[in-house]
């Protein structure tokens, strides 16, 4: 077992399980939180993440399949690929592949939303392109079962901030084409933006 990354919330280890390459996501203890809040959060989030990921896998959304889940860890199938924020072509926003991928990302999010789920951190860092050019959604650590237009609109805002205007327009096209509920979500999005915060923001790190 080898540690491959240390995120804000969890450590990721690489291992083998049932003869397949697997990833272990372990939610780390945080000394800054009171113990009750800390263990409550870690447990709830782990359970929630495993449940949502398993459910999306069931309905055929490309997410890593959950092999095993414990109180503070999840073992899942490894997806071999690169996250979109690390792919130059997507960063620069040029080419028909970038356009296809963003539009696919839009329709993927639409499917997730239609199933009553919000991702919670839907950025290019959590979309992965595998060797066969297929797009996967990863990291459901902040996801939730919800039908609120606001939660869904926030997913879109996060993506809007993580890509340029042109790619965002293709993303939105894919989203609108994928769900009948797009109208109310986009209306909510405008409302959130009108609240005054967020007016001049674009993401320049990552």
């Amino acid at each position, binding site marked *: 077992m080898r540690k491959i990354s240390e*995120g804000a919330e969890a450590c990721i280890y690489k291992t083998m399980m049932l003869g397949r390459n697997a990833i272990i996501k372990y939610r780390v203890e945080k000394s800054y939180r009171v113990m009750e*809040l800390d263990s409550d959060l870690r447990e709830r989030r782990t359970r929630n993440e495993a449940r949502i990921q398993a459910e999306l896998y069931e309905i055929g959304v490309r997410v890593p399949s959950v092999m095993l889940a414990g109180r503070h860890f999840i073992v899942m199938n490894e997806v071999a690929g690169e996250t979109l924020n690390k792919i130059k072509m997507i960063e620069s926003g040029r080419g028909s592949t970038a356009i296809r991928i963003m539009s696919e990302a839009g329709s993927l999010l639409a499917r997730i939303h239609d199933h009553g789920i919000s991702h*919670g951190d839907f950025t290019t860092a959590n979309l992965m392109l595998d060797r066969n050019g297929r797009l996967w959604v990863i990291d459901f650590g902040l996801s939730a079962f919800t039908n609120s237009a606001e939660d869904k609109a926030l997913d879109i805002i996060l993506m809007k901030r993580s890509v340029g205007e042109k790619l965002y327009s293709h993303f939105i096209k894919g989203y609108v084409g994928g769900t009948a509920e797009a109208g109310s979500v986009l209306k909510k999005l405008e409302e959130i933006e009108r609240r005054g915060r967020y007016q001049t923001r674009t993401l320049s790190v990552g």
Partner: protein
Amino acid sequence: MITVGIESSAHTFGVGVVEDGKILSNVKSMYKISDKGIIPMKVADFHQKNAARVIRRALKESEAERIDAIGYTKGPGLGPCLRVGQLSALTLSRITGAPLYPVNHAAAHIEVTRHLFGLHDPLVVYVSGGNSQILGLENVPRRHYHVYGETFDIGVGNMLDSFARAAGLKPAWGSSVARLSEGGRYMRMPYTVKGMDFTFTGLLTNAIGLLKSVDKRDVAFSLQETAFSMICEAAERALLLTRKREVIACGGVAQSTRLKKMLGLMAGSHRAKFYAAPDEFNSDNGAMIAVVAEKMHSNARRSSGTMDYGVKQRYRIEDFDIYWR
């Protein structure tokens, strides 16, 4: 070089004097808040009555014999209050002939902390009444404080104030919530973090609703722990994303001992150093405005475009250029 800074964005009228980076004086007059909160026009009247006295005292304490530059808070803040500081600065500028510099209030809280500890590129946790943001310097398109994450609804300070009023506590509310929470026990409350953003209204509504049926101490304790944990989590995510080596907290709520302790632990766990200025610079004050105005004055040739000597109630920090080191 001697610079005077005038701050009046909310209930404090503050004047500070700085000489070549050294803070010579930092005088404040604070409007006493009633249980109902702030009425901008009344506070502005109060500032108007005190302005000349506070300026004179700050100058006297500093023993400055001349003035080379003057800064004032352009925003964000309450319009009528900002106007008093702006007019005082304009008047002082007319009398002395010293040039005038409009300063962003939030940037001043950050810059004074960066200045005091000599930091280059910290991750910033700016927590005040009206705002709660996670920020850092970015160079594109111009050097400015970029907002990585922030509250989607209300600032953490105002959230604590609203709770304190509902619980019948006395101002200053932030510290009275902290006192009430001593010995309290944790109970689960709505915890909402979305990436590096967060919301407080759900938490506030829940806490106020519990006041009727649950021990006040437990409610206060859980509210404070939950809110501060949310801020820490958002900051932690930003720290790992930006890989900065230093974390600072500033703004009114950065006076909270508990929040500073939590942020210190969080930063330490990622081998980053944590800093917070003494309380005198985290509550509103004129010295921080003077510190920024001095940097603006000595780097004036690098500044882009002309200056606008107005006030701006909603002055976003991204729109304020940081053209000095």
